[in-house]
């Protein structure tokens, strides 16, 4: 297992390098001048333009820029934003927001998704099952920003249960509504996955045997079926953790949460290369790690899969 993990970590290095280069190339090869963009409708004096270009390495060729970036990266310097803040500093505070949002969504997704899935599976064919399936299908079909606006209007403005937007109220108050919206897609998915997996297992011979022996149904479900049924769910949830962080752009935008998603979106518009590369690389890293954890977990949950030769 140790060798397997080491191999996987080693493998992540070229993937990360390739990702940073790809993003770097995408952002820096694009035409346009961020400094003139920031100045808006006023011309920028030539001397100021020259200085700012020098300060942000904007006139260097791509390879030189990338080399400088990597050099900085080795010393822990992620570059600077156009307001002169070190990117690492801006990320520090923002990661907390995104992490909180992601974990809240992930928690809601797990609890609600599994609960709904189990409920639907046990009531297969009855109205509860149909309601869960219909509801989750609808949620999957409606884009997340529409869900977001409706939730804001309904729970924030009309009912006043949650703050409408902003991270000011802290966790959990400020994160529940956006977390729910962000999780909505995943909840639907987890519920369906749990339901299907559980149904499949409930048909298995050993469950029938247990039922025939006269064990109460809930005992059969909890003791015998749930653990096996949750293997694919756990796998999905593991990967989902990474996607939730990356997928938070729209949710952060709608709910005005100062997380990395919002920042990276603005940074792309501003052509703030170091910020874009830094955040995206970090997201890919989180993603790779989540994958690794999932694969390791998978081996632990299902003894038939072994990672060592």
């Amino acid at each position, binding site marked *: 297992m140790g060798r*397997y993990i080491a*191999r*996987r970590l080693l*493998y992540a290095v*070229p*993937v990360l390098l*390739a*990702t940073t280069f*790809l*993003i770097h190339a*995408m*952002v820096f*090869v*694009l035409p346009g001048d961020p400094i003139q963009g920031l100045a808006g409708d006023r011309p920028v004096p030539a001397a100021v333009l020259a200085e700012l270009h020098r300060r942000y390495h904007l006139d260097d060729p791509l390879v030189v820029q990338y080399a400088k970036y990597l050099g900085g990266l080795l010393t822990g310097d992620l570059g600077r934003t156009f307001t002169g803040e070190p990117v690492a500093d801006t990320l520090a505070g923002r990661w907390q927001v995104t992490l909180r949002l992601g974990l809240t969504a992930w928690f809601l997704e797990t609890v609600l998704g599994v609960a709904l899935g189990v409920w639907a599976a046990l009531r297969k064919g009855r109205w509860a099952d149909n309601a869960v399936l219909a509801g989750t*299908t*609808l949620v*999957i*079909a*409606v*884009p*997340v*920003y*529409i869900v977001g*606006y409706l939730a804001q*209007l309904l729970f924030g403005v009309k009912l006043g249960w949650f703050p409408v937007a902003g991270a000011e109220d802290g966790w959990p108050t400020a994160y529940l509504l956006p977390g729910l919206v962000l999780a909505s897609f995943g909840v639907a*998915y987890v519920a*369906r*996955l749990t339901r*299907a997996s559980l*149904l*499949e297992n409930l048909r298995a011979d050993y469950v029938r045997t247990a039922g025939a022996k006269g064990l109460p149904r809930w005992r059969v479900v909890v003791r015998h079926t749930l653990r096996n049924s949750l*293997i*694919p769910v756990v*796998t*999905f949830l593991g*990967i989902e953790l990474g996607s939730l962080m*990356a*997928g938070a*752009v*729209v949710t952060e*935008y709608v709910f005005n949460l100062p997380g990395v998603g919002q920042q*990276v*979106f603005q940074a*792309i*518009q501003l052509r703030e290369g170091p910020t*874009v590369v830094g955040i*995206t690389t970090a*997201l*890919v890293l989180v*993603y*790779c790690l989540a994958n690794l954890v999932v*694969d390791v977990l*998978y081996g632990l949950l*299902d003894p*038939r*899969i*072994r*990672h060592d*030769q």
Partner: protein
Amino acid sequence: MTSSPQAPAPPPAPAPAPPAPVRDLSLPPKRRPRRGESPSAGAWRDLRRRPLVLACTGVLLVMALMAALPEPFVALLTDDSGRCELADSRVGPNLHHPFGFDLQGCDYLGQVVRGSRPSLVIGLAVTAGALLLSLLLGMLAGFFGGWVDTLLSGLTDVFFGLPFVLGATVVLVAFPDHGLGAMTLVLVALGWTTMTRVMRAQVIGLKQADYVQAARSTGAGPLRLMTRHLLPNAVTPVVVVAMLNVGNVISGEATLDFLGVGLQYPAVSWGLQLNAAQAYVLDFPHLLAFPALFLSATVLSFILLGDAVRDAYDPKLR
């Protein structure tokens, strides 16, 4: 990673490669079609009997007709002069104009009907493009293994890790015209990874099958092996994933429009309409409701249809 042959899910990915287990776990455990049996005949018969499938197909057919020939629909359903008068801006639904008017004073039903084209074209074109790309790359990676596989799997990981909205935004900034073509290209570039993994796993699994070995021993070349023997048998699960994905593509496109990095004038699309509506939701809910309704109905139909197709190929779950 090595897994024992009887491991049910995810599809076994034995082999030289850095591990790239199939991520789309919505896929049920795979039943590989037995040699010589057409998996589709029974499933197809099965599909046509279901009312839900008929309903979804109906919705999609109507949408497709609207996308192909919007003007007859508009002429039939509403009283659209083709001119947009600002004086009519945001007027609500009435008898002559069932959906009312949009912000620009254009007949909203006309605009919503015309907005179906980008969504459908992009949904289908992207899915087709990504499907072709993933069949090709998955086949190459799975068939040849070795460094080809390592390289392609690495590439898949890089693109897979790239967050969708970010990747799309960065790429779209490079295409100032933001037309249908650019959007399709971007969404294909970001949408081929899952299917490629499924395809690769399929090919790896089938490669060792007796009939492939037999064909190989009779002197079939790699090209013949790939096109005649592996492709027909490996393609079904990939197509199922593709079907399920059409809905995601359509709402992904709308999300990019919503964020202001998608299509632009003179294009008309549901995403653009939703973007324009967002600020007026409170006073003029019809601006949000109609495109949301059409968009959601289309996405929903694709999802339900994809689900049904998958179920037909995997009847265990019914």
